[in-house]
């Protein structure tokens, strides 16, 4: 993946998207095969990989009794940042993400949208070149969802490589330069959205998804 690209991982629940991202994030060891992130092997150099990535997923939360600033400071220190660097980066992210008074309030009282903004700030605090989003908009209202999608675009414009995993086709259509379709643990297609339309003779991602799955002979109902 080149810098600045948004790469979509599309598939239904249970397809293997999260497992793939967890392997790339060094949380799980692959049974076989190899993977590298930012030039580092995920098995041989897990710490280097972790320094190069930021991870945002829909189920991620915050420490309820810490303020937004304390959450960011804690993770900044874990990433080896100095106090001054953390403070400067926190102010920068507060402006970009419009964190308002969330930096001084305890996270237990945040709305789901604000919580997700702090989760994103935490993931990019150390300015990683690669960011993984996994179902990052699940459970968010329309306004918060829009803010997250805009942020993903902004990160890509800032020359970060973004892997965007979701089962929401409209988000992939809107954001992704290329996508991979994952189905039942198999990678069944890798193409651009337009390329997928052309290869399947369809005009929507949903139709293209089903056409692709049928073409590779996968059953369309759960086993």
């Amino acid at each position, binding site marked *: 993946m080149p810098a600045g690209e948004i790469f979509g991982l599309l598939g239904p629940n249970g397809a293997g998207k999260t497992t793939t991202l*967890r392997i790339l*994030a*060094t*949380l*799980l060891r692959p049974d076989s095969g190899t993977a590298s992130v930012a030039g580092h092997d995920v098995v041989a150099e897990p*710490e280097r990989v*972790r*320094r190069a*990535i930021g*991870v945002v*997923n829909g*189920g*991620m*939360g*915050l*420490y*309820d*009794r*810490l303020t937004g600033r*304390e959450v960011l400071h*804690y*993770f900044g*220190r*874990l*990433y*080896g940042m100095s106090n001054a660097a953390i403070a400067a980066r926190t102010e920068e992210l507060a402006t970009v993400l419009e964190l308002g008074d969330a930096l001084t309030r*305890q996270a237990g009282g945040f709305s789901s949208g604000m919580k997700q903004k702090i*989760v994103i700030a*935490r*993931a990019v605090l150390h300015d990683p070149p690669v960011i993984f989003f996994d179902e990052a908009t699940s459970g968010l209202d329309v306004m918060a969802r829009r803010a997250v999608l805009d942020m993903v675009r902004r990160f890509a414009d800032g020359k970060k490589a973004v892997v965007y995993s979701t089962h929401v086709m409209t988000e992939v259509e809107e954001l992704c330069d290329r996508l991979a379709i994952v189905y039942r643990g198999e990678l069944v297609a890798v193409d651009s959205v337009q390329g997928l339309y052309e290869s399947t003779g369809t005009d929507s991602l949903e139709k293209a998804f089903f056409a692709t799955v049928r073409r590779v002979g996968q059953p369309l109902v759960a086993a």
Partner: protein
Amino acid sequence: MRAGIVRQIAGKEIVSTIRDRRAIVSNLVVPLVLLPTIMLGLPLAFGGLFTREQATQTPVAVQNLDELPPALSELLLSANVAPQASDDAEAAVTSDSVSLGLLVPLAMSDSVAAGERAELMLFTKRGNLRAEVTASKVTGAIEAYRQGLVSERLRDAGLDPAVLEPITVSSVDASSAAERSSGQLSWIIPFFIAIWTLVGGQMTAIDATAGEKERGTLEALLVAPVRRSEVVAGKFLATLLFGLAAAVMAIVGYIAGGAIVRWLVRSRLSGEAGDMLAELGGSLQITPSSVALLLVSTLLLAATMAAVLLCLTMFARSFKEAQSYVAPLSFLLIVPVVALQFNDLLDLGPAVYLVPVVNVLLLMDGIVTGAFDWAAILLTFASLAVVVALLLAFAHRNFSRESVIFRT
């Protein structure tokens, strides 16, 4: 392992716990207050009841009151017993009119004067504390009357009353000052320390493991460039700190609370209350070196409990589930504590000091009573150190297992 990272992780857990009002109350305030309340408050309250009951004029139903010898009647009155005439002493007790009945045999005064044996009968409901106090007053008076009669009859027969006591036995308490002052219930101190090292660390351990999973913060922590060993060490240290703090609060509460209560109510600490307080170890006095040993033992026990808590709570998916895992541990602790009460009767060899938790409870009991040896200390400390290391290795392994960290 990087000390700075461990400090950050431990620091975050400590701040989270300190900001939880429930945790502070249950970890620090309750242990500070509970032990003095139980060990000092209860004896003061109930000891006072016994003293008051002894001093109160208690009515006793006496059947055939006219037959009661005047000397015995006087002794009963001086023992704060008020004899009341009754047609049926047993029925009076059965109907709860009085707590004690006394049947005086017909012509008792004549029988006694003739040198014959008279048989008195006491009626009481067993298990009734008030009746037992009254019975002790009545039997005390009767015993004094009996001894007077025996002496009188022996003198009439030209014999010295000492002929009835050809042998006397004196029992001398040969225990050390520490053993005497610790009281018979000295085991309660190790028990409370054990309970508080467990309870004190509980909230922190659950929040640091199952709580992280439930909130969805564990994944963020594990994708940061920290080693699993640093995560385990940081969470272990925070759990240990709160377990230790709760236990220390319990000890401080006991010592300081005892001193304050004794100072405040010195005048009331005579009689039953004073006896009960001594029995419960309320006047515990141990040397500074014993205090140091007690603290080191507490530290090791807290470390063991913290490691057990981390290993256990890591498997839970939520705070609630973790609490259900931890709850039975308190009951498990009761088993060695009950055994501790009978350790004088059990023939326990040095090998018992290799059994985790049991060993440190026995050792603490020995430290409190001043009866311990260095072999026991070495065996206990070595055994606990090995157990803690093994448990932490297990916790470290679990922090790397998919089936554990993603069990949500």
